[in-house]
């Protein structure tokens, strides 16, 4: 199994480099650039992008019981399909080990960046920093699964690009993506 884990680790090498180079949470609340807009529309297949500008505003959006979870369910369905493809390529234990090690490394890094961003912007509820880290680490995990499965051009590529560019995609309601 060690050889398979080693092979997977090599395959995820480019993603590890992208994780280290990313500008996690560095552009929260900033005006959108053309690049941000393109990635947002590619990720959400949405006509509209709304920019939220503060941690309390993001928290209210995320806690709202009125926000539909259809987008979450769609992403989960995509993730499960990709995970099934990944499982067909690699043994379960090796896959679990590689994904767990990657998301553990990424989680520690992005959590620190989220805390710095929150402090820079005047503070956020401590749990909200954990939420941000959870969202970011989930995006890393989703992209890792997609790449291991051999999927090119999945929506998880553009989702990751948004996070790597310092943004936080909060959710898609109807045809609008809310972006922090």
């Amino acid at each position, binding site marked *: *199994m060690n050889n398979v884990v080693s092979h997977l680790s090599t395959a995820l090498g480019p993603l590890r480099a992208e994780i280290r180079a990313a500008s996690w949470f560095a552009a929260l609340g900033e005006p959108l650039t053309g690049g941000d807009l393109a990635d947002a529309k590619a990720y959400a297949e949405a006509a509209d992008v709304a920019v939220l500008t503060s941690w309390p505003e993001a*928290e209210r*959006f*995320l*806690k*709202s*019981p009125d*926000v539909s*979870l259809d987008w*979450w369910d769609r992403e*989960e369905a995509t993730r499960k399909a990709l995970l099934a493809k990944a499982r067909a390529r690699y043994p379960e*234990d090796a896959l679990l080990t590689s994904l*767990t*090690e990657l*998301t*553990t490394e990424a*989680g*520690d890094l992005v*959590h620190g960046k989220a805390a710095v961003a929150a402090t820079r912007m005047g503070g956020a509820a401590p*749990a909200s920093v*954990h*939420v*941000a*880290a*959870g*969202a970011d*680490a*989930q995006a890393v*995990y989703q992209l890792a699964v997609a790449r291991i499965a051999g999927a090119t051009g999945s929506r998880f590529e553009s989702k990751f690009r948004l996070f790597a560019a310092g943004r936080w995609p*909060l*959710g898609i309601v109807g045809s609008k993506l809310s972006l922090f």
Partner: protein
Amino acid sequence: MTDIVVRSVEELKDSPEEYREAIGKLVISHAINELYGAQVFDEPAIAFAPTPYAKWLTCRVAMEEYGHHVRFKQLGVQIGIPEARMMPGGNKKPLSIFEFPLKTWEEFVAIKLLADLAEILQVEDLLHCTFHPLRNLARATMPEERFHAQFGEDFSAELVKTPEGKARLQAAVDEYWPYLPKFFGGSNSRNNEIFRKWKIKQRTNDEMREDFVRRATEVAAKYGLTLPEVRQAA
């Protein structure tokens, strides 16, 4: 008690065999149970979480629990334990609580409120461990375990705002609580005797269990919840 301090993985090689075996048992137990917890409770709970906020917070909890497994496993590999012994499916039986798959959000909140408190006590007992790599690992995981228990408190506070939510949470507490005092092992545990002999751990299983029941009763009462009576483990 026997005086010993082992500052590194290298120094462990020169320590008494009984000491090395005791350390190995603890590392294996933590590595396996962290993984079971993440797979049986934390990751499945994401689907039950009611809002994106709760889902991503649960994602973070799940990833940290997986991370604890990774860190204990890495320490285990460093001290010569084969990886297969730190994964489920081997000789080590999981805690009985892991045999019951999660069914509701309220069950997960109850588990975070109470089972993670048990985890905190286990980690607290390693904070003065004479094997310093294990002591340091306990110190690293402690802030995360406290966050997980706080997760349980925060969402308990949300649930008990309505009578229906409180009733569902109480039902979940009633279902899971009986398994939790058993986390701390038997009253006359030979393993615990050896852990205390070498100052790997500080307290007897009964001392930890009594402290846990007291602290769990207090935290449950904060949210108007009660703990059912159970017969303690022998």
